[in-house]
């Protein structure tokens, strides 16, 4: 984004930039910055060695691997299938389409604990789906992955949909008349236009999965070193009234997540710049 004087002075429909910015900063402070900085302040009551001991103990490190790994895998899967879902919803007409479209939002609205219990029941060894599978899903890291995929799907679909709707068919037709195969059309024409939105959706799904607790906790099995997610360890510390320890792990998650999101944002800006948009 270009921050120039002209932008600041431009006349807009909403009240002046000063007021709007003031409101934005105040609002963000109350809702985001102050609560989050409280986590940092609480952590600051620890000494460095104590902090390091807490956030680098083997059990906590194992939970980072699971949480970040499963979140990443879930977001990747969502990026792939979310694209297909969005594509079908935008490009085709079929019966009950509006209902299918509304279904996509369910993971947003459903209390996560309900989702967790439902998924656990479905994928347990005697569950509707679980009984047909040759391997265990509920109470394993795979279960964590399933839950984190479930809650992330709407982010990808809902970020891609508007972009797909704006994408004119003429581009594809032009590509076809110029002799491009379907795959070439997708790779060179459609995908570059979609990729910034796809990255955004991926980043949102990933970020959401990192902090997810309610739905995962039921399906995870919560075995130390195997299926404990990082948010569970934070809760565990709170149960021991170890506020500093809990916030220390939370801070590590926050910083890591923020860094990753920043990197993805950077990547997004780069793709967009490369396309000259």
């Amino acid at each position, binding site marked *: 984004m270009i921050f120039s004087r002209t932008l600041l002075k431009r006349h807009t429909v909403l009240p002046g930039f000063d007021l709007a910015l003031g409101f934005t900063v105040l609002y963000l402070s109350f809702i985001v910055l102050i609560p989050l900085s409280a986590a940092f302040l609480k952590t600051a009551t620890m000494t460095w060695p104590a902090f390091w001991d807490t956030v680098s*103990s083997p*059990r906590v490190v194992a939970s980072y691997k699971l949480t970040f790994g499963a979140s990443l895998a879930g977001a990747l899967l969502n990026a792939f299938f979310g694209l297909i879902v969005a594509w079908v919803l935008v490009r085709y007409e079929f019966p009950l389409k509006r209902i299918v479209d509304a279904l996509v*939002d369910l993971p*947003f*609205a459903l209390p996560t604990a309900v989702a967790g*219990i439902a998924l*656990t*029941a479905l994928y*347990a*060894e*005697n*569950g509707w789906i679980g009984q047909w599978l040759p391997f265990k899903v*509920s*109470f394993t890291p795979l279960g964590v992955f399933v839950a984190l995929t479930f809650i992330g799907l709407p982010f990808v679909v*809902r*970020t*891609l949909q*508007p*972009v797909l709707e704006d994408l004119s068919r003429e581009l594809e037709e032009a590509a076809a008349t110029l002799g491009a195969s379907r795959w070439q059309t997708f790779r060179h024409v459609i995908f570059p236009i979609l990729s*910034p*939105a796809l990255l*955004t959706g991926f980043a949102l799904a990933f970020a*959401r999965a990192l902090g997810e607790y309610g739905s995962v*906790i*039921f399906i995870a*099995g*919560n*075995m*130390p*070193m*195997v299926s404990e997610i990082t948010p*569970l360890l934070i*809760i*565990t*510390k*709170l*149960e*021991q*009234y*170890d506020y500093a*320890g809990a916030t220390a792990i939370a801070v590590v998650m926050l910083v890591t997540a923020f860094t990753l999101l920043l990197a993805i944002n950077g990547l997004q800006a780069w793709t*967009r710049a490369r396309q000259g*948009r």
Partner: protein
Amino acid sequence: MPGRIPMAGRRAVLGLLLALPLAAAQAADISLLNVSYDVSREFYKDYNAAFAAHWQKTSGEVLTLKQSHGGSSKQARSVAEGLEADVITMNQANDIDILHDRGGLIPADWAKRLPNNSAPTTSVSVILVRKGNPLKILDWTDLGRSGVSVIIPNPKTSGNGRYTYLAAWGAALKNGVSPAAAQALAERIFRNVPVLDGGGRGATTTFAQRKIGDALVTFESEVPLIQREFGDDFDVIYPRWTVLAENPVSVVDKVVDKRGTRKQAEAYLRHLWSPEGQTIAAKHALRPRDPKVLAAYAKAFPKVGTFTIDEVFGGWKKAQKDHFDDGGLYDQVILRAKQK
């Protein structure tokens, strides 16, 4: 350019922010808030109705009794951080101790203010097995046999789980084995645990509905609820020795003094020891302290060897520190159990 979509997920936070001040705003008429743990909901619902009637008869005052239930440590934290509870009723003392340690809301010797360590009822940890007890599970040692699968809630997040772990450990000591052997038994048992659910009710679901595991350890007071919900497919096993879970209660001094509800709050708790209160407890499968009521309900409460946390583990504070704090004995047990 892809627009960032407005997101629906943050409602919960707003809801919370709005709900908390509401609870405090209604202080004008006389009301009491009882903050309690998860599974006492049904008991206090009945007890509140009985006490409201009793109080109106004896003092003429109409009382509104409110209850809040949830995971015990979470509830205790809420009160320590400012939820205005007049009374707190828990299933282990360290969830009340915290109100003194962190909030300065009650005196350190709160447990001495009422009879029986301030615990009007108790329960014991029992073992639920599948009908007919196909694996012949009779005591804690059987839960450590190879091939037996045991469902226990996570001791790190659940009072029920902490009691279970201490029950097995303490029973071993009561049977005369060394602390090292008790720890080895705990290790063998936890090696047999396929899922560590967050709380007691979750563990029940895993065992009763998903049919995972050969045994479930839970409170005796939970058994009727489980049978009502899932039918009679279970046998209850009373081990030779088990832990006596005391359910302590306390007035929250700072809050009742501020709200002017001390008289009502103290009467509310004292009435738990009355024959009426004890009978309601017995009906909800909580062991009454009153010998007469206990005798009347003797069938529901088989005699079993019990020990308290104070007696074997030197109190909850010490038990928490020795066993459940990070790096404590429980962490050693569970990590070693999972490595084998």
